[in-house]
Structure formats: structure tokens, C-alpha cells
């Protein structure tokens, strides 16, 4: 963010404080506050080169964190944080959309507004949905009350026979969790209640994100009836040094079975592991660990070797992907993950274009056979948008080569490519200390930096003269560890040349991919949708999402290439590319 913008927002904040808020606490939001823009509704311009074709986004205004996604009576519900009045964060309510297939959506009226002084008058912030054993859905969410304190409230459908669940009521017992002097909870750091799970004692548990100093905490609450909650003495888990934990999530995953496990059924089954995920407020990334859960003592223990302190653990996505929420999809026995992808463009641009934020494609989550990490991939339903396939097989990409993919709407496409035939004896050596710094490696070595094995991959949203392009690529190295030599694979999403516009964030993202290039092909799937690029390597072992704003590579003027800028050749074993139809998003917000 430019220094001048930061100073501007500080100035606004100071001016507002000086104008007198009495003895009220300042809202400690995790967003920049641009009071001047919060309720500035402009008429969006007709030329919208960056709006997506098949990603979820409402017609206008600001969106941020996911809230309570769920499925009920065969209908998927997406709730999300929304500003009905402007293109920056503010006036936050729960907006609502429904779908039968996670692809095409119908916008619904606002589900939860910011209305009650003791519950949420200063904001209906994020939360989660739980499906009770009798099938009824219930929402738990954070409200900011008239004293600007963060509290938790419950909301239930007004009419259970309405499958679209348009209206929700807030019972008078709210707020059902509050920061008090006794419980010593920080009233500015107490939010995002998770989906509940039942213990063997038939008692409900949820976690709420918080912090104590610089220690991130998942506070544990218990209840017999989902209305009266008691804070547990111990948190479910905590970790030092990584700041406030937002949007905590805790769910079971099955080892050796690709199908998901119903959250509401707790288990001490050895074949069931647990995932604890948190959104780190300080750096805006989502991290997770896999571990075991003792449901008698409510203790979660991450797997040995998991990294949870600092910032080098496992992430759902190594690019732009935050405040995500997953839910157990009982219709299809799978876990589905949603993530919010904000803009990399400036606030001024967002106000001008009249909208900000998109949702990543919903993704299926399952545990790897090793039990050590998750696989994350777009849900199957998106293949129905594919059309006009273009295929290529067994093509050797010589060093310094570019292969154009023709007959495709390159600005709205789905590409699957797999590489093989690497001469691993020619891999360059990488020092083990780089294993925790893939993003630095990618920022320091963009696609123009030639290596021995790599960079090779895709150039997407490329302009005709290659003035602009976004590269998604692999590099393969050799690493001499104590025990043996092994090969490591680095994946980069390189935005450094994505746009001639100087005011957008063009930093690169990187991740190592846990595959052995000696035993398997390097596979990559990339979804391209105007201003969002989502890449999945090795069946979703590493994902990277990015936002780009080309000035030339727009619509029909965008092109797609496979490339190899390494010193060694590499073979494309197969490349499949499809033009993507647009999703239907209808109705009024």
C-alpha cells in the first residue's frame, strides 16, 4: 500500500476521533477504514475489463470474509460480508446467495443486517453455520454492539419450510457470548465463531478467534442447547508470536478415505485426523495444521513436525486467499472450501470501478494419503462450463520456447498441463535454508531468470507483443540434506509483468510442491478469469491465487502460452485447454 494512502487513512481516523466519540472504544477492525468512501455509491462504469465470468461476485460494492456457508435441503447457501453502500469496507451486513450447483447463483435479500444495539448495530461480522442433528441450521456470528465491543450472537431461520432461508431471527438471549471482566477476553479481539461439533458427552463445542498479547488463541466454548454457552478454562489451541487468530475452523478429515467426515459427529477413530485452520490477521494468510484430537480432554495436538509458530506452515493457498470458510457438504459427502480474494488494485480504482473483492472458486478438500497435508481442488461442477477443448500430447518444449494455445478465449479459460521427461541429473542445487522462503525465491527470480530445469509452465493473460503476461511455472532443484539427495519442486505465480499499470500490487507468490519429479509428472491446473488466476499443482497439494489487471491483455486481446525458459528441455505429456462459459448470477442484492 502506498505511503500516501496510509497517511490519508490515519488522518481520517484521527479527524474522526477528534470529532468526539465520547467514551466509546475505537473499533479495532482488521480492515483499513476509509470513512469518506464507506457510503459513497457511484454508478459503475460500463467498461469492466476486470469483472470475472465464472467466479462469484455481486454486481457492485465491497465484499470480504465468507460467513456461514452451508447446504440445506439440497440448496447451497453462500453468506458473505458486504457493504451495501460502497466499494470499501464498512456498513457490514451478511449478504446472501443460493445455488443448486455451486456454479450458478441467485442473489437473495440481506440475511443479517446490523440493527440491534446490544447485538450488532455496528456491524454483523463473520461467523459460521451449524446443521443440528435434527437437520435445522443455526448461525453463530460476531456482532459489534453499540459500545463497539465484539460479541457473539445466534440467529435461526424464521421459516424452516422456506428452502431459500431468506429470513432469519435473532433470539432475545443474544448476545450469547460476551467479553467480561471475569473472562478477561479482549473486546476488540473476539470474533468469528466456528461451526459447532458434538462431543461424546452430547455437548456442543465451538471455537472463537482471539489473542492475548501476540499469542493467537482459539477460545473454546461449550453448550448443551446451542444457546447457553460456557467458556472453557483452556483454549482448544494457541500459538505464540503470530498475532490475532481470525476465522478459526476445526474439522475432521478421514485418512485413507477420500470422502469427508461429518463435522457434527466427533470421533476418536484412529482413521480420523483433525484440521485446525486459522486466518492470521497480521499477515492476511490462512494457515492449517493436521493433528489429533482427544475429545475427552478437548486437546488438539498438531502432527509432529507441523509448523504453527511463525509464518512457514501449510497454507490453504500461497497467494491471495483469506478469511476462508469450509463446510461439510452432506449432499455429496465432501468438504467444500470458500476463500475471499481481495483486489490487488488501489482503493481509488475500486471506488472508480464500483466493486471490490471476488470469491475464489469453491474447492473440494481432502486429506492426502500420507495424513500430513490436504489436497484442495476446484469442485467437479465447474467442468460443465468447459467448451471447445484444445488438446496437445507429447510435445517437447526446447529451451527458450513459447507455444501458443490457439482457439481459446484466453481471458476466461481452464487449462490442465502435465510435464515429464526432465533430466534430473542436471538439476541445480538449492540450499535447505530456502525451503521456508518460496515466496522470496519467486520474487527474486521471476520467469525471465533462466535456470537449469525451469522456469517452465504457462503464460496467461498475455498481450500480443508480450508486454504483459502472468507466469505460472515450476523450477526443479536438487537438495543435499543430511540423509540423502532429494529433488524439490518450486511453484511460482509471477505477477511482475502482469500489467503496465504502475499502481497495482504485482508481487509474486511461491510454494514448494510435495511431489517427487523422479516418480510422477508435474501437473498444473490453472483457471483464468479476467483478473483472477487460480493455480493448482499436483492434484491440489499446492495452490496459488492471484489478482492481475492488464491494460492490454484484456478479453479478445489476451493470449495463452506454454513456455520453457530453462536451459534443459522438458516434455509436455499433455495439455488440455477449454474456453469457459460464464456462470449465471441473477437476482437482486
Amino acid at each position, binding site marked *: 500500500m502506498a505511503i500516501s494512502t496510509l497517511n490519508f487513512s490515519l488522518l481520517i481516523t484521527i479527524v474522526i476521533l477528534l470529532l468526539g466519540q465520547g467514551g466509546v472504544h475505537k473499533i479495532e477492525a482488521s480492515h483499513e477504514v476509509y470513512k469518506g468512501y464507506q457510503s459513497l455509491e457511484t454508478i459503475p462504469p460500463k467498461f469492466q475489463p476486470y469483472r470475472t465470468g465464472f467466479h462469484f461476485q455481486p454486481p457492485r460494492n465491497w465484499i470480504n470474509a465468507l460467513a456461514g456457508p452451508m447446504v440445506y435441503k439440497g440448496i447451497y447457501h453462500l453468506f458473505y460480508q458486504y457493504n451495501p453502500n460502497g466499494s470499501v469496507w464498512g456498513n457490514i451486513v451478511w449478504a446472501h446467495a443460493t445455488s443448486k450447483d455451486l456454479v450458478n447463483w441467485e442473489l437473495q435479500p440481506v440475511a443479517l443486517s446490523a440493527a440491534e444495539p446490544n447485538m450488532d448495530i455496528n456491524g454483523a461480522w463473520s461467523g459460521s453455520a451449524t446443521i443440528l442433528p435434527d437437520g435445522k441450521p443455526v448461525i453463530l456470528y460476531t456482532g459489534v454492539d453499540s459500545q463497539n465491543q465484539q460479541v457473539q450472537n445466534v440467529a435461526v431461520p424464521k421459516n424452516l419450510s422456506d428452502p431459500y432461508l431468506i429470513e432469519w431471527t435473532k433470539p432475545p438471549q443474544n448476545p450469547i457470548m460476551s467479553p467480561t471482566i471475569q473472562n478477561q477476553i479482549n473486546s476488540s479481539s473476539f470474533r468469528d465463531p466456528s461451526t459447532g461439533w458434538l462431543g461424546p458427552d452430547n455437548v456442543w463445542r465451538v471455537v472463537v478467534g482471539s489473542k492475548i498479547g501476540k499469542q493467537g488463541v482459539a477460545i473454546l466454548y461449550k453448550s448443551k442447547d446451542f444457546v447457553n454457552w460456557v467458556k472453557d478454562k483452556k483454549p482448544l489451541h494457541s500459538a505464540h508470536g503470530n498475532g490475532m487468530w481470525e476465522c478459526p475452523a476445526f474439522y475432521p478429515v478421514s485418512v485413507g478415505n477420500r470422502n469427508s467426515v461429518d463435522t457434527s459427529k466427533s470421533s476418536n477413530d484412529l482413521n480420523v485426523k483433525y484440521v485446525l485452520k486459522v486466518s492470521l490477521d497480521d499477515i492476511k494468510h490462512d494457515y492449517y495444521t493436521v493433528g489429533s484430537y482427544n475429545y475427552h480432554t478437548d486437546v488438539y495436538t498438531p502432527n509432529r513436525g507441523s509448523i504453527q509458530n511463525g509464518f512457514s506452515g501449510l497454507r490453504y493457498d500461497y497467494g491471495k486467499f483469506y478469511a476462508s470458510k469450509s463446510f461439510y457438504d452432506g*449432499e*455429496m459427502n465432501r468438504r467444500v472450501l470458500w476463500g475471499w480474494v481481495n483486489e490487488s488494485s488501489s482503493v481509488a480504482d475500486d471506488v472508480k470501478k464500483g466493486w471490490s473483492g471476488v470469491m475464489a472458486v469453491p474447492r*473440494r478438500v481432502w486429506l492426502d494419503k500420507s495424513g500430513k497435508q490436504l489436497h484442495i481442488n476446484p469442485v*467437479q461442477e465447474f467442468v460443465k462450463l468447459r467448451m471447445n477443448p484444445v488438446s496437445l500430447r507429447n510435445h517437447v518444449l526446447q529451451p527458450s520456447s513459447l507455444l501458443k494455445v490457439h482457439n481459446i478465449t484466453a481471458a476466461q479459460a481452464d487449462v490442465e498441463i502435465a510435464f515429464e521427461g526432465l533430466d534430473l541429473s542436471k538439476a541445480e542445487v538449492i540450499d535447505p535454508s530456502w525451503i521456508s522462503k518460496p515466496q522470496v525465491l519467486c520474487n527474486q527470480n521471476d520467469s525471465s531468470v533462466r535456470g537449469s530445469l525451469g522456469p517452465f509452465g504457462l503464460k496467461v493473460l498475455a498481450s500480443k507483443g508480450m508486454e504483459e503476461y502472468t507466469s505460472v511455472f515450476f523450477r526443479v532443484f536438487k537438495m543435499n540434506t543430511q540423509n540423502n539427495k532429494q529433488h524439490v519442486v518450486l511453484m511460482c505465480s509471477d505477477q511482475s509483468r502482469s500489467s503496465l499499470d504502475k499502481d497495482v500490487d504485482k508481487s509474486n507468490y511461491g510454494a514448494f510442491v510435495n511431489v517427487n519429479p523422479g516418480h*510422477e509428472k508435474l*501437473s498444473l491446473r490453472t483457471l483464468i478469469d479476467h483478473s483472477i488466476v487460480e493455480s493448482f499443482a499436483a*492434484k491440489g497439494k499446492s495452490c496459488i491465487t492471484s489478482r492481475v489487471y492488464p491494460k492490454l491483455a484484456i478479453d479478445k486481446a489476451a493470449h495463452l502460452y506454454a513456455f520453457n525458459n530453462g536451459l534443459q528441455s522438458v516434455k509436455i505429456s499433455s495439455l488440455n485447454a477449454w474456453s469457459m462459459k460464464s456462470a449465471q448470477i441473477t437476482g437482486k442484492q
Partner: protein
Amino acid sequence: MDFANLFFLLLLLLSLTPFPHRRHHPLTLAGADTTLIETTCKTTKHYDLCLSSLKSNTTSSTADVKGLALIMIGIGTANATSTSSYLTSQLPAAATTAAKNGSRNAAVLKRAVLKECADKYTYAGGALQGAVDDVGMEEYDYASMHVMAAADYPSACHNAFRRYSGLLVYPPELGRREDGLRRICDVVLGIIDLLIVGNY
């Protein structure tokens, strides 16, 4: 009896002695390919289903593991397609039965659910077709993801019936087909795992 006749008799006797086989299989000839089907099926979740399904196909005895995967996917596709047709064929009957019982709401509901289920099984067939393409190209990662999706669609159909468990009964025939498709998909995933490991 002279020597020639004795020799001939001996030869005749020898030809009648059964050679030691590892198994008696009147349907197959060489021992090698039978073993491939058996060793392949052993690694899957449903050995008996795998064995009987593959052996019922005439080309399986000479197929490699990739070929066995394709045969099994074909069996799954056949299940999905025939189930979809079966569901569509039930639509008129649903209306007639309900009309007889005077319960018009149940009839409308049943038709809607049968239609939804027919769609789900069609999607399952589509996903398996995607898997065929990917296996053909040896993109086993993608193939397995398509098969995973195909295995999920039958649950979605069952859940549609569960939603109206007071009014509708989940047909036992459909339940058999649901279990069948899911098991077939499990077997396919097992064979694909072998291909992933053995690919290099």
C-alpha cells in the same frame, strides 16, 4: 503291442493327466493374465466385485492395468447410464400410482426427485467419461478426481429422497444401484492408484 503303439498310448495317457495349475479356470487359458487381474483386484477395496466384473469382459484377459482400469470405468458408466434411464422410465409410473392413491403432492414430489436423481446419475456418467479421457492420456491424478466426483453423485440422489423421508420411500432398486456405482468407483480408484505408482 509294438513299441510305436506303446509310445502312442503313453502319449495319450500323458495328455489326459491334468497339469498342475495354480487354479482351475475353465474360462481362461494362460496363467499370466489371470494373475494380473487377480493381483490388480487384490489392491482394490472390493476384490470379488473387481474380479467378477473384469472377468465378465472378454478383453480383460489380455489387457494391461491401464486397460483393466478402462474396462472398470466402462462398467461404472454403464451403471450410471442405465440408472439414469431407469429413473426416467419411472416417471410416468410415479404419476399413475399417486393418482390412484389420491396423493397428488407426493406424485409431484416424486417426479421432481426422480428427475433430480436422473440428472445426478447423468453427471456421474459424464465424470466417468472425463476419467476415460484422462486415463487414455495417462493423467491419472485428474482421472482419480473425476472418479471421486462420480462416486459422490449417487449420495446426492439418496439425500434428495431423505429430505422427504415422510412422503417418499427410497426405492430398494435405486439403493442397490447406488451401492453398486459407489463400489465400482472404489475399485476404479484402487486400480488408478496402481497406475500412479507404476507410471514411472
